[in-house]
Structure formats: C-alpha cells, structure tokens
C-alpha cells in the first residue's frame, strides 16, 4: 500500500523493498535516539545498579570492584527490628490512602453532580482542585502552622471548645490517620474529575425513562448513576492497587519526626535515611529492590486486571 502511494518507489519496489522500507523508517529511529540514550543510562542503568544489593558495596571500589555477598544484605535487612514495622506502617498508610482516595472522590462527584447550576459547580471545582497542584513542601509548611496545638487554627478551635488540642503530627497514634486524611484532602478534588467525566457520559434518556416509570431520586442514583460509573470505579480501584507500598514519601518526609517513627516511618523514608543519611548503600538498595520487586508484581497484576475487566490498556 505504501508503494502505490509513491510512484517513484514503484519502479524498483520488488528487489529493494526491505532496504527501501528501512530507509524510509530511518528518521523514526533517529528521533528515538535521545530518549533511548537517557532511558538506558538513568532507568536501565539504575536497574542494573540494583546489583549493589548483592554486594558488600564500597563506593571507592565501585560496582565492579565490590565483593559479592549473595543475599546477606537481605538477611540483615529482614532481621532489622525496624524493618517489619516499617512495612506494616507503609501498608496501613497506603491502604488508607487507596480506599479513601476512591471513596471520597466518588461521593464528592456524586454530590457535585446534583448541583444543576454550572457556575456554582465550576466554583466548587476551582476550589477543590487547588491543593492537588501544590507541592508537599508548601503543604507541609501550611499544616505545621495550622495543626500546631498551641498556635494553629485547629488548636485554637479545640481550645475554644474547652478541649485539649491533639498533637496530630507528634502523637504516634494520630500520625498515620493524619497522613491519610491530608493526602485525601490534597487529592480528592482532582480525583473526582474522572468520575465527573463518567457521570456526564451517562445517557440522560435513562433518567427520563426512569422518571416516567416512577423511580425516585434515590432509585435513579442506585439503578442508573452508580452502574454508570461502576466500570470507572473498578478501573481506578484496580490501578490504585499498584500503590500498595507507596506510603507517599513527599508527604511523610516533610511532616514526620523521630517521635512518630513507630507508626509513621514508611519504606521510602526508611530507604532514604538508610541510604542517603547513613550512607548504607547496599542495605538501602536491598530495601529499595524489595519495594520495586513487590511493586512490580502489583503493577503488572493491576494492569492485567484493568485490561481484563475494564479493557484498559496503557498503550
């Protein structure tokens, strides 16, 4: 088909077809060179760099000079008294964020969808999307101020009510819940976009037909609206599964302190302190590799399920 489009190529189409095709595709290969080089160095390079996890790594000796120690780093990692609590903290916080990160945006989008006036709706949207686009550095500064028991606004509300202000960021019992709530707060508005899109995609004739049949608002929501967004909800749930070990480094790192390590230290902050602060490169890489390995299984599984049940493919 390509050859019929270009008369010049018709003459020697048969003998040189393969080379001709390659020549025509050559610019496409050239376009890919810069990205391929960068990905080879920084992505595949770091993947290869995970061999450090199996070495008694010495920065001076490098990747090729360091001594191989098999799974020794993993053995010492798994026997660290802090490691398994860190895994538990990570899963607790990640699960809380995953569940809240689905439920809250769904409910919000359902409620927002009941607002008929488009200007009002848009105003609400403008307000709730904002936190999503700000960095956790700024939000952390904001919440340090707001959540401070002595000087923050929240603290003052508690004091005004005659209650002791809780120390949301300093009490190990409250810290994980605080992290989950703040993360949901940051993301629920923007997370609702996808459900609002699904809601607008529902055929309005269905509602009219239901009204004629005498269905009330709640019945309409139950029988038309919810089934209408169910596939999107399932898709987002399945895709969020891949975050099972993502406690949210940016949020935790900027808001935690040593007094909440028992419940607030997650795998990513653990890897960071071990590797960058304590320069335990091999041990930290082993912990990182553990995370990447488990995450790999979950990411592949979630994409597979998303493809199977929702027909979603990333490419």
């Amino acid at each position: 088909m390509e050859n019929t489009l270009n008369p010049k190529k018709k003459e020697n189409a048969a003998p040189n077809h393969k080379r001709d095709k390659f020549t025509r595709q050559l610019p496409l290969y050239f376009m890919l060179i810069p990205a391929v080089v960068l990905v080879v160095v920084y992505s595949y390079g770091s993947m290869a760099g995970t061999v450090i996890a199996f070495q008694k790594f010495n920065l001076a000796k490098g990747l090729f000079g360091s001594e191989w120690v098999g799974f020794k780093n993993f053995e010492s990692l798994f026997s660290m008294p802090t490691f398994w609590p860190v895994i538990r903290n990570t899963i607790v916080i990640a699960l809380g964020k995953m569940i809240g990160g689905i439920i809250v945006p769904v409910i919000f989008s359902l409620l927002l969808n009941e607002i008929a006036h488009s200007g009002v709706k848009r105003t609400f949207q403008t307000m709730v999307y904002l936190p999503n686009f700000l960095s956790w550095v700024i939000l952390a500064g904001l919440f340090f101020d707001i959540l401070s028991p002595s000087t923050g606004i929240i603290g003052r509300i508690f004091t005004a009510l005659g209650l002791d202000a809780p120390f949301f960021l300093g009490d190990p019992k409250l810290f994980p819940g605080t992290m989950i709530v703040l993360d949901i707060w940051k993301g629920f508005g923007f997370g609702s976009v996808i459900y609002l899109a699904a809601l607008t995609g529902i055929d309005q004739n269905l509602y009219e037909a239901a009204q004629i049949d005498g269905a009330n608002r709640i019945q309409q929501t139950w029988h038309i609206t919810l089934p209408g967004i169910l596939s999107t909800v399932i898709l987002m749930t399945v895709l969020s599964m891949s975050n099972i070990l993502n406690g949210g480094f940016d949020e935790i790192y900027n808001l935690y302190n040593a007094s909440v390590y028992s419940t607030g230290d997650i795998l990513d902050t653990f890897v960071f302190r071990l590797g960058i602060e304590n320069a335990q490169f091999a041990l930290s890489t082993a912990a990182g590799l553990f995370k990447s390995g488990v995450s790999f299984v979950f990411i592949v599984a979630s994409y597979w399920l998303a493809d199977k049940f929702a027909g979603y493919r990333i490419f």
Partner: protein
Amino acid sequence: MKIKSSPSRKIFLVCNFIFLTLISLTCILPFINLLAISFSSKTAVVSNQVSFWPVEFNTAAYTFILDNNQFLHSLLISVERTLLGVAVNLLLIILTAYPLSKSKQDFSARSVFSWFFVVTILFNGGLIPGYLMVKWTGLMDSIWALILPSAVNVFNILVVMNYMRGLPKELEEAAYIDGAGHISTLVRVILPVCTPTLATVTLFAFVFHWNSWFDGMIYMSTTSRYPLQTYLQTVVINPEAFFRNATNVSSELSRYLELVNARTTNAAQMFLAMIPILLVYPFLQKYFTTGLVMGSVKG
C-alpha cells in the same frame, strides 16, 4: 424534561449545597490563613489574632524576603530549571511519541520500543542506584542533575502517543503523497493539530519541575544551588533556620524585626512559591481535565 422538586428534594439540595460549600472552603481557607499571616504583624501573629484577614496589615515579611539573597537565588534556579526542564521534556515527548504512534507497517520496531519505555513504569532501580547514576555521569551540583534523570516521562509520552494515534490517518497520507518526509510531516502536519495534548503535557511538566524539591536536596551539595522548593523545604523543616541566617547575614534588616518573625516570613515565602502555580491554574483546570479524561478513557 424538568425535574420536579419534592420538599425532600429541596431539603437535600440545600444540605448538599451547604456541605459542598464547607468542603470546598477547607481546600481554600488554609491558603487564605497563610496569606493573612504573611501580611500581618509579628505581634498579631504571636498573640494568635490572625485568622482569614490580615491584622495590622504590612508588607514587611515580603520586603524582608525579597532582600534575602538566598530566596532570590533559589527562585532564579527554579525558573531556570523549570524553563529548561519543560523544554527538554517537551522535545523528548514529541520526538518519542511520533515514532511510537506509527502503525506496525509504518514502523517495524514499534512494539520493541514501546516495551522498552513501558518497562521503566513497571520497574525502577530505586533511590541509591539512581543517585549513583547521577553521580557517575558527573551531574552532581549541575542543573542537569535536575533535568536529565526525569527528562523522559513515559506517561506523558503515552498521553501524546495515544492522541496522535487517534488522529485521522488521512492527514499523514496526504502529507506523504505531497512528498513530505517524517520530519516535515511531524512539524507541519501532526504538531499543529496536537496543541491540546501538548498543552496538557507542558502543564504536567511545568507543575512537576516547579514542585520538585527532592532531587535538589540530594544532588546539590550546597544550599546556594538549591531550587526554590528545596530551599523552602529546609525552611519548613526548621522554621527558625532561615530567620537566624537571614538576620545574621544582613544586619541592616534588623529594623524589620519589629514587624516580622519566622511565621510571617515563612508564610510569605510559601505564598510567593505558589504564585506560578496560581498563574497557570486556569489553564491547568482546562487542560489537565481534558488530558486526564483523554488519557484514561481510551480503550
């Protein structure tokens, strides 16, 4: 058809409106509080008088910060990093998405390269190997350490690639008949119709670069090379640090000490760092939404 409103429906609508108003306010009021603090006097802030409106209005906190070299220096680094980073991201997205958007007949190695890029979503080497790669490629302390490791954003490439695939095939065929090669087809035919998706990924990249702080922290050895968010991070973690340094460095600023403290100056710095995001916010709303829906509803 007009929905008839029963009394219970009306009650629901009123409650719903009030509830949504409260929820929306929780997303805005913290920032109003921040802004009010930044424009209030030290005494008003210390005595907890400030809520959502400045008390004893003054701009000393801002003057104080804009006299501070570290803040301005970090701001410049952030601007440089964002402009350069977005340009590099965009260029690589275009150069990569176009070949990958071709059909298998038009680009034989398409699947191989698609998987080559997608593997990086599925698996990553983690913090330390990534850190060492930056070190070994000699980027430490260079602005490129903030740009090259994240230069290829596979998600953004996929968004643009999917958009290009959705374009009518006739566009390219027409260009091909006219004798246009791949480069001129891309530049003259494909890119002009890709404006919405390119706007989306440009904004994605802009927000990413402006908000990044972690890479600055680990790849820059001195605080003078920190981009703004990294610098802010040091201030946020240790609120008094900036204040002490600033007052030590320039003693002529001591006249401000009557009016500012760590809380007002931090509030002012955080607000200034938000401004670029607020400026692009209207565009964000427009394009992020289309981008997100576009990226996720495709089959």
